[in-house]
Structure formats: structure tokens, C-alpha cells
């Protein structure tokens, strides 16, 4: 397990949800875990929504000062330097969507590269309209790498259709992730599936996850 795990991808691919689950998983094995929200793009639905759950689990949370407030000011907190410079904690970094969100990572990339103990995970959801194909996903990967200054090291298949996710959706995601893996030469680290759905599946490399965001049905 690397000290720093970064989740990046097209916006809406499920980075925040995976980052929160990953942090909770890490905390079961490691004393000190910190999760940092580097998202300067999204106004709603953020790491901070899960702050209570995370802090109850003993995970440190570093969020932009104005996250979840009424202020549209994408300022990153100075504590972020502590996350990348002091190496005593396991760190999970939730990077904002697309290349625009990844620009914020650029400021911290030199520290992460120097330490060289990281996993940079591309979160793929092939049910998102602008990343329906492995080729489109690869384009987004390259844009994020150019903006964030850290090359990806692995792929996470988080293909889902929200409440309508079924085995066919997950298998389609697996096939497309495998193709993306062939195109970029990086391994598929896992396929993340909501935990109840995961129970009934006969699949290798499944990471059962809890969903953080809940909406009211219409």
C-alpha cells in the first residue's frame, strides 16, 4: 500500500465516493489516515458531506475553507502542504474533475513525485456521456495528467448507472476498462460496486463500497 492514493477522473465519475470508501478502508489497518479534498470545481456533493462519518471513524479531513458554504471561492487550505510534506500519515487525495480540477494538484505534485510512494488512480465510469468509450476516457486521462503533473499508475472501474446499476452495466464497464488498460498499459486495480449489489456478483477484483450521496426519489 502506497502512502498517498490519488483519485482523479472525469467529473461525475465517482472520485469522491471512492476516496471516502478508500479512506475508511485504510483506517482499519493504519493508525493515521487523512483525506484531502482538492476539488476547486464542484460546488455541491463533496468530501465534506461525509465529514461526520469520516471524523467519527478517526480520519482527519482537510477541505477547502469554503466547501459547502455559500461562497464560491476555490481556495485551498495551507494544511494541504502538511498532507504531502509530512510523511507520517496515509493520505487519500480527492482531485477535482477533468483537467480543470487537476490544475490544483499541480501545486503539490513536486512533493508527491519526490517522495515517490503514491498510486494515482484514474476513476472510470463508462456510463458518463462524455466518456462512453475507452478512447474518450484515454483523452480525459491525458488531459488530467498534463494539468496535474502526475502520471496515472492504475485504473479503477467505477462504471455505474446510479440506482439502475446491474450486472450488465458492471460487465460493460469491465470490458471497457480492460480495453482502456490495453490502450494505456496500466492495470485495472479493482471494480467498485455498491456493497449490496456486490454480494450477488461472481466477479474478480470487486471492491464493495458504500454510497455516500442520497437523493429524494421523485
Amino acid at each position, binding site marked *: 500500500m502506497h502512502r498517498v492514493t490519488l483519485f482523479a477522473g472525469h467529473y461525475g465519475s465517482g472520485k469522491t465516493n471512492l476516496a471516502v470508501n478508500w479512506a475508511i478502508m485504510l483506517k482499519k489497518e493504519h493508525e493515521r489516515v487523512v483525506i484531502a479534498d482538492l476539488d476547486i470545481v464542484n460546488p455541491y456533493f463533496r468530501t465534506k458531506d461525509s465529514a461526520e462519518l469520516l471524523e467519527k471513524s478517526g480520519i482527519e479531513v482537510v477541505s477547502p475553507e469554503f466547501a459547502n458554504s455559500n461562497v464560491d471561492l476555490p481556495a485551498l487550505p495551507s494544511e494541504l502542504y502538511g498532507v504531502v510534506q509530512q510523511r507520517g500519515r496515509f493520505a487519500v487525495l480527492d482531485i477535482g474533475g477533468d483537467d480543470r480540477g487537476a490544475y490544483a494538484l499541480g501545486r503539490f505534485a513536486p512533493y508527491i513525485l519526490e517522495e515517490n510512494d503514491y498510486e494515482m488512480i484514474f476513476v472510470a465510469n463508462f456510463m*458518463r456521456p*462524455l466518456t462512453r468509450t475507452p478512447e474518450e476516457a484515454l483523452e480525459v486521462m491525458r488531459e488530467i495528467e498534463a494539468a496535474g503533473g502526475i502520471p496515472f499508475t492504475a485504473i479503477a472501474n467505477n462504471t455505474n448507472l446510479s440506482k439502475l446499476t446491474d450486472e450488465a452495466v458492471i460487465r460493460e464497464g469491465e470490458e471497457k476498462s480492460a480495453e482502456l488498460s490495453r490502450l494505456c498499459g496500466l492495470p485495472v486495480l479493482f471494480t467498485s460496486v455498491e456493497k449490496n449489489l456486490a454480494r450477488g456478483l461472481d466477479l474478480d477484483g470487486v471492491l464493495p463500497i458504500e454510497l455516500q450521496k442520497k437523493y429524494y*426519489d421523485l
Partner: protein
Amino acid sequence: MAKVLMKGNEAIAEAAIRSGCRHYFGYPITPQTEVAAYMAKRMPKIGGTFLQAESEISAINMVYGVSSAGLRVMTSSSSPGVSLKQEGISYLAGSDLPALIVNVQRGGPGLGGIQPSQSDYFQATKGGGHGDYHLIVLAPASVQEMADLTAKAFDLSDKYRMPAMLLADGTIGQMMEPVELPEKMSEGGFEKPWAVTGTENKREHNIINSLYLVPEQLEDKNLERYERYKVVEQNEVMYEEYMTDDADVVVVAFGIAARVSKNAITAARAKGIKAGLIRPITLWPFPKEAIAKAAERAKGFISVELSMGQMIDDIRLAEGCKKPVTLCNRVGGMIPSPDEVLKAIEDMEGGAF
């Protein structure tokens, strides 16, 4: 097309493209920016125009220009930006031009905040600009409706030669749901003999204008426009009724407030309270008849809004002040919880109003 997972704001943009809109002018503002971002990516790939104007005022006047040429066109913004557009919207209405204006509302007044709100109801339905006019106002409550009502808005706008507004809120704009978008979402085909497309020396000049120097002519224009509005009111009202058949307590809510209310109604029914929901889908024309009909049976109405109480006035007008109407609301970017709505239902059932 199979189902995909979309943000509400993306669904608006993709549905606009699939409805034949190839011209978008806007200026970024949270929580609506994804509409512009999506258009910026897609329009160049399909030969359309995406233009980030220098301000909302410029954007709405660019919309006026393209609409004058008879083409489908849209702009989008959030509350403060839509305030800036009001002069242009009045000019569109005064020139009988179709266009789509999207408002993904945030808290106000003034700069307010970036969290969701419904406090632009008056501005949208009562004419935010000057002069006598109406917009067709559609209120989506899901990501699928963001798409479907975008297509509907273009069609209604062309059909009646009047601007249409999609009045969404930040939550529906930002949330993600599975949606299915047909390849072609609008048949189009509306004749626009009034458009300024060049006479080729074959016809008289078309003139698009809202200025009338002779008062009698301006009066006639207003009267003619209001005749058209009457037809819209007769033919285009849309709403959803949920468990209203035997309802003692009728909740009226649109957009995100309707989703919360449905949960509260399910909880009320579990407690044996006969509650139901009328969800206006068109806010103008307002579903007056459905409300009046419900008033014959119901004990009263609850208006659930993310505002200080704006739609509540239209409910009172529609039911003719026969029954009590209470307000269950949160403002400033807050959303009422199902428990808060349930309490309002219980209060009314118990006679506390």
C-alpha cells in the same frame, strides 16, 4: 440511445443539442456552469456556436440576434445572471421572438449564495422585465425532466413565438441520475416566415422590433399577444398529481421541493393521513383548474417552497381563498426536510393553521 448517468446541467445541454439548438451564448455562474462547459466541448464538434460573452447582458442580446434569424438559440445562467438578462428578455417578448432561457436558481437576493433556491418564481412567472408579457415557465424535478422539458420548451417557444424559461434549482442542476435521451428530441419544422434571412428581392423586408411609435398599434400588439397567451393557458398546462383522489391535505410543490414532499406524503400515508401532491410542471401557465378541483375536497393546501412564499399566492388565487393555505419553506440555500413537510401535513390534518 441507452441510459447514461448525467448531471442535470449536462442533460439540459445535451437535450438542447438533440432538439436542434446550435447556438449557445452564456457566461459562467455557479451552480449552472456545467451547461456552458458541456456546450463548449460539444458545439465545436458538431458545427455549432458556443460563445462565452463578456456578460449576461451581451449573451441575451446575442440570443435576440440569432432568434431574429429564425434559428433555435439558448442562454443559461443562475439567479443574479438572470436578473441581468431581464431587459433582453422583455425585448424578446416585445418582438415575439422564441428563445430558451435557463435559470438554475441559487439563493438571493443580491449575490446571495451558491446553494439551491426557488426564490426567482415571481421573476420568472410574473415578468421580471418591464411591460406586459409572459414567459412559458417549465419546472423540472429530475435529471430526465431537465432533458425532456428543454426539448418541450424549444417547441412551445417556437409554436407560440414567445420566450420560454426552464426554471430549475441548484440541486437538480448538480445531481446525477440515469437518463435516456432519444437521438432526436424535437421534430422542429416550425415555419418562421417572419425571420430576417435575406429577401433575395423576392419579398418585403422583415423587421424584428419592439418599438411602436403609434400608441394604437402598440395597444393592438399587446392585445394580440394576450390572445395568444390565452391559448397557451388553455392548451399547455402540465402538472403531476400524486395520491390526490382522496386527499384531505394537498401539498403543492415543484422541482426539488416536490421530491422532498413526495417522501413526506409517503410517510403521512403510513401514519394514516390522507395527503397528496400537486406538482406543477408548467409554472406559467399555472395549473389553476387542478388546484380549484382539489379545493372542493381538501381541508387545505401546503405550499412547499425554497422561498419566502411566492407560489403560495398563485395557489390562493387558484383555489379562490376557499381553503387555508400554509407555507412550509426554507431559504438561503437550505432545503426543507421530509420531516418538516410531514409536520406541516400533520399540523393541517390536526386543524392547526
